């Protein structure tokens, strides 16, 4: 990977136009060669490498891991990658280890393709002696732009003086470049700025909205739902191509968040309309439930494997293989569903209803300010959770704790939506508390779900005579371990729920939205 220093120009180098400047320096330029190549930039779907200040670049058959902003080549290796997605397990060993020390991607794929054209000019002095070369670079990018706006091409010149001729070549460079031109390598001048732009304006699993306390709540909700439905649509291709389980996760979260907000912010839209949308979105999400359960199971399979003794390992492998096979079948169903024009049309139709913003669909609370509605909704919902927490006991059913978890999720979506108009310190405190509680409830729920999932799956496989006895044995061992962990986790969960319940609801809401403290 060529990481030499070059100098940025405002326009492409035109040898005819610069001839007078060259003549003044008693220098001549003559065209030697043209060369083109493309650089492919790989990252995870959510730019994890970029967020850690790394770029994974493929130039021909060479893959390079480069640290930014001070360009540092960390790793370079010749690879024989096929075009397309690369699973973490398929990365070459050395590169895989380097990446694993930074992030834990499941898959990386080409996020950006840069075409790099270079014209080489021979530079000669007045004796017609070759004194160096001038490389004219032209970087362009076709496609992959987040907002359909092209990433503007970048031009530059790279002087390559021969030994003993740096002074005249430096004079030439100064004659070509404007006074305040940038200089640096290709990563600094092209790749990093472009990736930064893609990252900044690209996909976000959590919509980031800007509005004021006076903004009518309907406007806030409309923008949020539109962004969430965009997000759901953006993930469909990734699910269909089975690029990474996170695509399905984000798709489901986007639909769930939309449904939750329509439930919590009642009568911002017409109740019948809200109900219909929630039902449709519920259908679009529920068709992926099995696949998501299998994804979660397989993502955690390494930790399950580690829990089992050596003698149950062969059985576990058979079990894992059977579940992986089941996942493939489930994936095919989901792919079929998501590729069905009717499904896509349904999602698009819902999205259009929100983007068109038809006033006849607005509810009677549509024009209330966001801050008033937010305070009321948070108070009401947080109160509901506190009551559920108060009812939680060592004897309560898992379903009760699961319900608290669902309501906590909804409350988190609500508080995230109104972050721009909340007191930031109180917001941080509440979301921090909710996150900690949700993590705990999530662990508890995962343990319950995985036990249930495992026993249902085993029964089904056994019923279909598709299960090896060794696998049954491993499943039994695993169920027993999960059950023990589940019991231990319940004690911790109950303590946390008690703490949540003990905090006065009104005080929390008053801290969060101080301006509405007097609103009943």
């Amino acid at each position: 990977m060529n990481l030499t220093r070059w100098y940025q120009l405002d326009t492409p180098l035109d040898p005819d136009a610069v001839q007078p400047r060259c003549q003044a320096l008693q220098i001549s330029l003559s065209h030697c060669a043209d060369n083109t190549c493309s650089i492919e930039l790989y990252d995870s779907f959510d730019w994890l490498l970029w967020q850690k200040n790394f770029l994974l670049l493929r130039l021909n058959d060479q893959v390079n891991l480069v640290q930014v902003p001070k360009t540092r080549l960390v790793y370079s290796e010749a690879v024989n990658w096929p075009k397309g997605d690369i699973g973490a397990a398929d990365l070459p060993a050395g590169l895989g280890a380097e990446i694993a020390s930074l992030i834990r991607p499941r898959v990386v794929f080409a996020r950006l393709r840069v075409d790099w054209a270079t014209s080489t000019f021979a530079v000669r002095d007045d004796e017609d002696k070759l004194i160096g070369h001038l490389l004219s670079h032209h970087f362009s990018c076709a496609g992959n732009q987040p907002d359909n706006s092209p990433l503007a091409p970048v031009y530059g010149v790279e002087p390559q003086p021969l030994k003993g001729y740096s002074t005249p070549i430096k004079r030439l460079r100064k004659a070509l470049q404007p006074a305040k031109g940038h200089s640096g390598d290709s990563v600094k001048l092209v790749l990093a700025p472009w990736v930064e732009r893609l990252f900044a304006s690209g996909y976000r699993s959590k919509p980031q909205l800007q509005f004021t306390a006076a903004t009518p709540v309907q406007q806030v909700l409309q923008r949020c739902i539109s962004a969430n439905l965009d997000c759901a649509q953006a993930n469909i291709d990734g699910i269909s191509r089975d690029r990474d389980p996170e695509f399905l996760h984000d798709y489901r979260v986007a639909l769930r968040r939309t449904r939750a907000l329509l439930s919590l912010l009642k009568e911002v839209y017409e109740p019948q309309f809200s109900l219909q949308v929630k039902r449709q979105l519920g259908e679009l999400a529920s068709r992926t439930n099995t696949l998501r359960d299998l994804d979660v199971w397989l993502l955690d399979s390494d930790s399950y494997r580690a829990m089992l003794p050596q003698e149950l390992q062969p059985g576990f492998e058979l079990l894992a293989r059977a579940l992986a096979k089941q996942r493939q079948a489930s994936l095919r169903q989901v792919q079929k569903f998501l590729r069905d024009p009717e499904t896509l049309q349904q999602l698009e139709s819902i999205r259009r209803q929100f983007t068109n913003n038809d006033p006849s669909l607005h509810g009677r609370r549509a024009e209330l300010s966001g801050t008033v509605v937010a305070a009321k909704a948070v108070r009401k919902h947080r109160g509901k959770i506190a009551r559920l927490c108060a009812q939680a006991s060592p004897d309560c059913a898992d379903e009760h704790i699961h319900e608290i978890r669902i309501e906590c999720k909804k409350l988190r979506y609500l508080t995230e939506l109104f972050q721009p108009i909340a007191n930031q310190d109180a917001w941080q405190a509440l979301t921090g508390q909710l996150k900690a509680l949700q993590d705990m409830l999530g662990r508890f729920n995962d343990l319950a779900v995985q036990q249930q999932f495992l026993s249902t799956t085993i029964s089904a496989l056994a019923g279909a005579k598709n299960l090896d006895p060794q696998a049954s044995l491993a499943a039994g061992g695993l169920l027993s371990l999960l059950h023990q962990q589940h019991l231990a986790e319940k004690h911790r969960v109950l303590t946390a729920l008690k703490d949540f319940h003990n905090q006065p609801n009104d005080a929390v809401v008053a801290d969060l939205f101080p301006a509405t403290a007097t609103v009943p």
Partner: protein
Amino acid sequence: MGKTAAAVNFALTAAEDGNRVLLIDLDPQGASSFYFRVKPSSKLKAKLFLSEQEKLRQNIRASDYANLDILPANLSYRNFDVMFKQMSRSKHQLRKVLKSLKSDYDLLLLDCPPSISLLSENVFNAADLVLVPVIPTTLSERTLGQLWRFFKDNDYDTRKICPFLSMVNYRTRMHKDVSERLHKDYKRVLQGYIPLSAEIEKMGAQRAPIFAYARNHIAAKCYQMMWSELRNRIEAL
């Protein structure tokens, strides 16, 4: 005699053979530098050449060819003898200078002015091989004999002397006879020879080694063959 033409063409052949080569133009007339279109150094005066190793490096110029650099001449090099005289160990100064360049190059080729002087004696001390172009004529044969005796009389190693026949025209009886005699009298004369050729003379007009414009000419082939012979001799050192 074809000294400079030989130095320039051997330098390029050696570089094309994969060696990192520095051609040092010690002749104040700067003919080697001229052939490579390298302007004479205005800053690298004889005094700096001998005393400032960093300045010496800064004045090295890349040629138009890969692996081949040139250290251009300066008119003040005509004063080398005067300067050497004022120095202690006056015959070993060049060896000291060249030592600093050894690590950067595989081969240092010195294009020397024609005479037996203090500068020449510095070259005799510094060089592993002293290439002597000899036109197969009586006068050149006599000059080689003088050089041989000078080596003997001054305790220089005569095995360093590496004569080769230059500007040879075997259509003349004299060239044939003298060539035969030289091979008989001096065992270390290279077997190959450089013919008298108009293509070699064109180097001045072309300002380039013969390989740049007549790579397939017999004269160019002769330089290449002679380099192969020379390379064996260098490897045997």
